């Protein structure tokens, strides 16, 4: 007999936002969910190290996501300016 078993369907993470896109905090959480998974069954010492590593990675990922958001904003500001939309560029710059 050949026996195979499909795993239980795990929960998905649903993240939403209001009046704009996801924040750097939300994107960092989503990113780290994919990068680092700490098993609940891991030995305590390993688990502690993995969680410390995850925390460190969260800081790094958050920094670069924030930088990417600012960089994209700068690009939008310059594109608006180049298109003659000074008021729009000011709104984007202040946001």
């Amino acid at each position, binding site marked *: 007999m050949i026996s*195979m*078993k*499909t*795993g*239980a*369907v*795990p*929960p*998905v*993470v*649903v*993240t*939403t*936002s*209001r*009046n*704009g*896109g*996801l924040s750097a905090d939300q994107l960092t959480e*989503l990113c780290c*969910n*994919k990068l680092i*998974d700490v*098993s609940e069954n891991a030995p305590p010492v390993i688990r502690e190290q993995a969680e410390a590593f995850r925390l460190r990675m969260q800081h790094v990922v958050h920094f670069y996501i924030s930088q990417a958001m600012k960089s994209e904003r700068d690009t939008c500001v310059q594109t608006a300016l180049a298109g003659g939309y000074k008021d729009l560029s000011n709104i984007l710059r202040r946001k």
Partner: protein
Amino acid sequence: MAFTGNFMCTSFKGELLEAVHNFKNSGGNTFKLALYTNSASFTAGTTAYTATNEISGTGYTAAGNTLTRVDPSTSGTTALTDFADSAWTSSTITARGALLYNDSASGDPSCIILDFGADKSSSSGTFTVQFPAADASNAIIRIA
């Protein structure tokens, strides 16, 4: 009726043995994720996509988002596959759960029911569904 948890559809398990579904990134089938209100009554016995109780709202198109497939792989003795996160941007929608189905196969057969646990809403914002880590313990579709 209401969502009562996550399920892998029984019909989907049978269809895996009939080679109905192809999850390969290149040349695979088109899988979609449709969102529903809590009036939907999906169980493991659900067999196909339905528009009944599907949500509507700004930024949402009926039948849901097309998913980006991740090539099936193996880890130890477990085979698994995954999808990239799916997002509805600039949306104003509320959903309680989702149905993942094969849009390429005849009859739009269902694969997985996802219960979000509560109504989730976006308002002129982004609504993102993230699939779990693609490993032998957590991947959305696993065969051990």
